[in-house]
């Protein structure tokens, strides 16, 4: 079979196919059935095991680049925590992330209020916003949360918020839920806080950084792990939700299958060329 035309294929055709494969299922979902992997179940079960009313630290370390993968898991984790009547303290260690994180959390809180749930800012959750300093902030929080964050994202004095009056340092938290897009993120929280202050933690991260955290999951330093949009979609399925990660999985499935096909086709073209070239 003559495949030389494939070798000279204009890459814009590939771009067009990717565009169609991504846009198509977003406009008309196929509904590929989702499974649920062990790390995702562990993440869900770890949060489900937190005692009701406990205070949880949620560090959302990402910016808009990680939005499709990390915002869905932030929303679902926040909802699960609120439904367990946990109280949540939110932080962000990424320069460009605090606006997105605040919008996501407030959006979720408003949705829950519309469903009739009694959720009050300052009493049930607090967004402490962004603080520069990477690992130094993590260590500083161990000496006192208000020490590292004297004001919240809305410029309220931290000490004036009812929830923060019960928070001293890491010993005040039952768990750390870290949603991470890279540095600083899960790796640094494990190294600086989990190992030093013995705060149990779970992580949700981008698909590209998930392999890096598997050793921490296997060692028990992470109680659960959500890897990328697939992890977020499985988590939504476990929670009985149909969020944006579930909607995105059709597109991601087809895009992955097409990239795999490209690798195979590219090599078949090369092998045929080598065999036919004298």
């Amino acid at each position: 079979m003559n495949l030389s035309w494939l070798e000279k294929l204009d890459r814009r055709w590939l771009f067009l196919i990717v565009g169609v494969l991504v846009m198509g299922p977003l406009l008309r979902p196929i509904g590929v059935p989702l499974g649920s992997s062990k790390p995702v179940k562990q993440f869900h079960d770890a949060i489900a095991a937190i005692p009701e009313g406990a205070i949880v630290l949620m560090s959302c370390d990402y910016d808009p680049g990680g939005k499709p993968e990390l915002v869905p898991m932030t929303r679902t984790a926040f909802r699960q925590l609120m439904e367990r009547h946990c109280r949540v303290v939110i932080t962000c260690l990424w320069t460009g992330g605090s606006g997105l994180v605040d919008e996501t959390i407030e959006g979720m809180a408003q949705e829950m209020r519309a469903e009739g749930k009694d959720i009050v800012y300052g009493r049930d959750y607090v967004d402490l916003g962004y603080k520069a300093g990477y690992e130094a902030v993590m260590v500083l929080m161990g000496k006192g949360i208000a020490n590292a964050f004297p004001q919240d994202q809305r410029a309220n004095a931290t000490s004036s918020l009812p929830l923060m009056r019960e928070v001293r340092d890491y010993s005040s938290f039952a768990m750390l839920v870290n949603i991470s897009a890279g540095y600083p993120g899960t790796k640094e929280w494990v190294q600086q806080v989990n190992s030093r202050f013995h705060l149990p933690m779970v992580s949700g991260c981008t698909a590209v950084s998930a392999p890096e955290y598997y050793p921490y999951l296997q060692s028990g330093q992470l109680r659960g792990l959500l890897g990328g949009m697939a992890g977020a979609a499985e988590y939504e399925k476990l929670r009985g939700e149909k969020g944006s990660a579930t909607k995105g999985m059709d597109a991601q499935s087809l895009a992955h299958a097409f990239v795999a096909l490209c690798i195979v086709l590219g090599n078949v073209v090369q092998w045929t060329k080598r065999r036919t070239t004298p």
Partner: protein
Amino acid sequence: MKRELPLLLTAVIGLFMLLSFFVPHHVVSVPADFLQQCAVIVVAFGYVLGGANALSVNLSAIARRQPDWPYKLVLVATLLFTVLIGLKEGRHWQDGNTISMFLYNQLYSSMQATMFALLAFFIASAAFRAFRVRTVEAGLLAAAALIVMLGRVPIGDQLTAWLPEPVRLGAVQDWIMNVPQNAAKRAVLMGAALGVMATGLRVILGIERSYLGGGD
């Protein structure tokens, strides 16, 4: 003196921070807290320095009419505009329909999303043109990549639904991630940790001096 003083400061502060990890007494912990707060302030000043550096480099390029100077002009204008708006709106930048939120949602957020979305197109093109299997090692890499890529998404299990569960793409992908990948990653982590410890000791002991810059 120009070199000895920074070396002495590094050694003393480095040793002190190491000591604070093991000694919880307030004689050590109070100054250690102060030093950690200093570190946070220094990092914050890094952003100011970064902004000043971006201005200095780009303004001089514009003044000399270097190639692509109009783009640098756009960069400087947007940098100054964003800073000025930020200063004007202050801590209330998130209250309702502020200009800062408009810039964040309509420009910053959209541009970042666009950059990452472009990756999907370039990965497909690179997979077709550059991922060549020429050796056994490259073959193993390609096989693992194909299994993980398909096994991570639901379509992988659908394609292999006719196989027994332990050999379906999802299960094989799990095994690759949990066993060979994990073993390699753990080795890399341990190597990196040993490297960090060795470098830290070299810096504290004054053997590693590259951070001081070249020349005396």
